[in-house]
């Protein structure tokens, strides 16, 4: 593994029964970069993300998070790897029976020994980071979709992860709110030096935040293009990549 890879996917093959979902995928993510996994619907983007955060086991291949091979490591090492990552799920996945502040406090209460007052301060700081400092007492059902995404982001950032995984962070949001989320991602990346790995197919977001992109193909189940968003747009040599970028620009 390269010294400069914070996440390293090596020859990953994923199958559900006989159905091949991903075929021999390899790529690396460097520290502090914003890396986007791109692809059409059904291309296996979210499946790849679920394997990168250890929720599923691949048919073959390895996923290394900061040099820990999470596909074949002990529970202790897997736990260490989990402490290095934060995840924002597509649905935000906030616990519906808990207030936003309780949701953000959840990982801090579980993994640290700070006093209640200190945790309340830290939760306020995390909520302020995403602009929700006045909404700590609200339940997830009482806030908008964009606010849920931001609250989910605050929870994902609660333990200052080294790598932040975002699954469709701006899906279903209006352009203004989506742009706010993009700006937040850039701020987090620049100010907290967090590596960000995003799964999306929103072109506007990709051009706003991505430094490097890989594109998955539904037919071959492989990576068909990689590079900066501008490279893929201006120098595409695969018909699907050209169609994907030109149709939406």
């Amino acid at each position, binding site marked *: 593994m390269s010294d400069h890879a914070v996440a390293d996917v090596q020859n990953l093959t994923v199958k559900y029964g006989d159905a091949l979902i991903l075929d021999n995928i390899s790529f690396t993510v460097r520290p502090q970069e914003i890396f986007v996994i791109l692809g059409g619907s059904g291309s296996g983007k979210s499946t790849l993300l679920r394997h990168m955060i250890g929720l599923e086991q691949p048919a073959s291949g390895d996923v290394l998070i900061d040099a820990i091979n999470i596909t074949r490591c002990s529970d202790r090492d897997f736990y260490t790897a989990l402490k290095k990552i934060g995840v924002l799920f597509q649905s935000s996945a906030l616990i519906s029976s808990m207030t936003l502040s*309780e949701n953000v406090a959840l990982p801090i209460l579980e993994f640290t020994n700070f006093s209640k007052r200190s945790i309340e301060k830290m939760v306020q700081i995390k909520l302020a980071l995403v602009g929700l400092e006045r909404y700590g007492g609200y339940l997830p059902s009482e806030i908008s979709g964009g606010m849920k995404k931001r609250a989910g982001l605050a929870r994902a950032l609660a333990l200052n992860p080294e790598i932040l995984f975002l699954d469709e962070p701006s899906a279903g949001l209006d352009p203004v709110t989506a742009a706010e989320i993009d700006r937040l991602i850039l701020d987090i990346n620049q100010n907290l030096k967090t590596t960000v790995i995003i799964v999306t197919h929103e072109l506007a977001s990709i051009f706003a935040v991505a430094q490097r992109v890989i594109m998955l193909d539904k037919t071959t189940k492989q990576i068909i293009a990689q590079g900066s968003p501008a490279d893929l747009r201006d120098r595409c040599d695969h018909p699907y990549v050209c169609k994907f970028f030109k149709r939406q620009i």
Partner: protein
Amino acid sequence: MVTSFSLPSFEISDSGDGQWLVRVSGPLNIHSADETRSRLTVSLKNNAVKSVVFDLEQVSAVDEYGALVLSELKDRLALSENNFQLLNAPEILVQHFRRMASESTVSLRRPRSFAGYEFITQTGATTIETLRGIRDFVTFIGALVLSGIRVAGKPKSLRTHDIVRYMKTTGVDALPVVGLISFLIGLIMAFMSSLQLKQFGANIYVASLVALSMVSELGPIMTAIIVSGRSGSAYAAEISTMKISEEIDALITMGFDPVLFLAIPRMIAAVIVIPLLTMFANLFAIAGGLLIGVTMLDLSASSYITQTINSLNLFELNWGLSKSFVFAILISGVGCLRGFQAKGGASAVGHAATSAVVTSIFLIVLFDSIFAVVRSYWG
């Protein structure tokens, strides 16, 4: 190679008059927070500390959690700003440390108002909730009637394949549990009653007792309670899940009547299979009694069966089946109603399922009492 989190090291020295100097090298962040706190607390807590100076020149990584540890320590030692100094600290750590001193806290719970106000608002909220429940009930009954009229006018609108599916899940799939429980109840009743009846040489009346009590009372009730736990809760959970995931809204926008689409097939299936399940339960309970009669009471199988048939009549059978018909409407209706009433997130599904079972069982007992009163006047 596995990367673990590196920990800081400390050099702690005391000038002798309560003036402490702490040299920290290594990270001062989330990963070292617990270690830092415990090391510093142990070293400083038993000493008279008048001031602490932290030399942070060798600190390699910092974040808000590192600053929070220092802030907690300062509060614990009750030191003023002048007596708790950070030397050679990275600018970002100083900023975080200052912020920790001034940052407000956020309550992890929902803000609560004072008790009197809470009582009034709770009373109001409960009243409104009860009125809403009544409104929902009336609306649901009205919707059922309208759907029934629609089905009568256009029988093709009835989703017959759904009815068959629910007949299987509510009836056929429940056969083993209903059969087993009824068999055991018949067995227990026969055994317990035989202890008394044996003294009078009235063993044969065990058959009458089991048959009559099961057919007219326990059979319908036990079957209804089992079905409400199995299927009533499932109806509520399925419909409430559809409600909170906007599937019911989608049905409405596609022009479907959600009551006709979701409630009517379930209710028809329940009304068909619950009386059948009740008869099945009666048979198994009688079989349980028969086992005790033959093995412990010296009765022959034929005399037990003859006594059972003689003690029953068509009225008793119809009475029990009428009850199970009413219970079927209650269980399926309440299950569907609670599902449609669900609001909010995932907890609403659990609440709907629980509420469906509790309400169904209460209504089953209530209506059984009404049946008993009616029967007492009937003669």
